[in-house]
């Protein structure tokens, strides 16, 4: 540090850093000369823990990564294990998974919208956004029994079949949701203060993003319409009609527009998924990775033995390695699993979009004002539990 600049600690205990992110800023007056992000305050060694758990036990660990989109973590993880086991998941389960993933995306974007706008001094959107998010949390709660950490997926399918109440709840949510998004937009999209704070701020163009490994709404905001739901479809996404919104400037405002439009598209997808829900089974009863049905446990001694074996020892996938990535609300969320043929993974690596996207921070804040840093961090949409794991 030279005599002319001032070092300023932003975080780890600061509301605008959305968790325990610490950024050491070098300031010349109010201008940021350099920034040094310091992460790891929430490191819990989830990857180490996973090496010592059976494949089923890991599902609940994945909830604790990106807790604003826990279902997306569950989905990416179980799909990686299913790839390793070569399990074909029934279409009904895939549709429900996709519907939930889209509801989760909306819930995550709503939370982002409310807190991001609040950071920049617009308080009203927070109340509106959390109102709709609450409706989504209710849907998750009625289905899975918990709001933030559903763990509703199992290897091979779902934890249980959905009921008519779920379909009805998704219908009634999607009936009104587009009008709700219109409401948010009347508050922000043409708001001169909002535009002043976000337009031309934190610019990263598409080639910068690709070099930095940045994915999700940040990359699409820069005009590169890359979305794994289209590029490498999973969960029957190729059967749904939806658009991939993209921006042009790659600034904070474009990231806002992309996420707003994504919420609209997600509502369309969730609606299509419940309307076109295939009949049939929601799990793969014959697979060695799947728990026997609850009813069988009272009738059939072999089912009891199998259940006991799965709980105590787990199942053993073949030796090999797989990587599976999905489009989480924050970008490419991947799980890399190395199996040595045992009942626990030899290595489980999470490819966390928040961690990678945060790397772009330094480039974005250099030369900007201190107040812009708050806008820029907000627009990255990080979850520190996922950054630090």
């Amino acid at each position, binding site marked *: 540090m030279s005599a002319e600049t001032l070092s300023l600690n932003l975080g780890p205990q600061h509301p605008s850093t959305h968790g325990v992110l610490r950024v050491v800023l070098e300031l010349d007056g109010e201008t940021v000369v350099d920034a040094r992000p310091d992460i*790891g305050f929430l490191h819990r060694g989830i990857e180490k823990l996973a090496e010592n758990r059976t494949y089923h036990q890991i599902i609940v660990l994945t909830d604790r990564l990106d807790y604003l989109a826990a279902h997306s973590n569950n989905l990416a993880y179980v799909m990686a294990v299913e790839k390793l086991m070569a399990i074909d998941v029934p279409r009904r389960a895939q549709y429900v998974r996709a519907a939930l993933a889209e509801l989760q995306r909306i819930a995550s974007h709503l939370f982002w919208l409310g807190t991001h706008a609040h950071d920049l001094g617009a308080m009203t959107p927070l109340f509106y956004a959390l109102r709709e998010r609450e409706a989504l949390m209710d849907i998750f709660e009625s289905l899975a029994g918990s709001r933030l950490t559903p763990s509703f997926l199992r290897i091979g399918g779902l934890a249980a079949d959905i009921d008519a109440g779920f379909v009805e709840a998704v219908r009634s949510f999607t009936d009104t949701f587009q009008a709700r998004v219109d409401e948010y937009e009347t508050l922000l999209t043409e708001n001169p203060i909002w535009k002043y704070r976000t337009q031309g701020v934190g610019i990263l163009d598409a080639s910068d993003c690709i*070099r930095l490994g940045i994915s999700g709404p940040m990359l699409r905001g820069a005009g590169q319409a890359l979305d794994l739901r289209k590029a490498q479809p999973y969960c029957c996404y190729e059967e749904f009609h939806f658009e991939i919104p993209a921006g042009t400037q790659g600034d904070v405002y474009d990231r806002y527009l992309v996420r707003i439009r994504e919420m609209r598209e997600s509502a369309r997808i969730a609606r299509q998924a419940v309307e076109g829900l295939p009949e049939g089974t929601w799990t793969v009863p014959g697979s060695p990775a799947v728990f026997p049905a609850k009813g069988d446990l009272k009738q059939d001694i072999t089912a009891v033995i199998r259940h006991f074996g799965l709980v105590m020892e787990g199942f053993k996938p073949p030796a090999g390695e797989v990587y599976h990535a999905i489009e989480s609300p924050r970008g490419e969320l*991947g799980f890399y699993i190395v199996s040595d043929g045992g009942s626990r993974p030899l290595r489980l690596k999470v490819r966390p979009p928040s961690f*990678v996207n945060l790397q772009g921070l330094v480039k974005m804040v250099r030369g900007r004002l201190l107040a812009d840093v708050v806008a820029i961090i907000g627009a990255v949409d990080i979850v520190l539990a996922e950054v*630090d*794991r």
Partner: protein
Amino acid sequence: MNLDAIRERFGGAIGEVTVFRGEISLTVDRDSIASLCKALRDEEALAFDFLSDLCGVDRHPAAPRFEVVYHLFSVRHGHRLRVKVPLGAEDPVIDSVVPVWETADWHERECFDLFGIRFRNHPDLRRILLPEDFEGHPLRKDFPLEGTAKP
């Protein structure tokens, strides 16, 4: 993506090529990693411009003990590739790929932090998730899962 074309183009540098569940893995000698990565990025037909992930694997007590694993993605073509580099326990050092993909910076720091694998020519190789004065590398298999640090 044509597997034979890759074999032909990089024949000497590539060891084993495996396909498992439709995913292609190349095993590469550590001395050729930097030049190979650059070629994988720049070759028109491959165009691996996006490094999805980079991580370490500890196969202790097997030998060679470590692996550095690169997951590549091509934005233009939409295909993926895995590149693996085995490293011995006594000398886990490898060239950094930050000059090829800027995103490797934090990934390599994390790999250094948790596995103790060192990356030559990395611009700023220090711990990223754990405190600077932390002793040991927790994702190594011989690092205990529970317990307190030695007094």
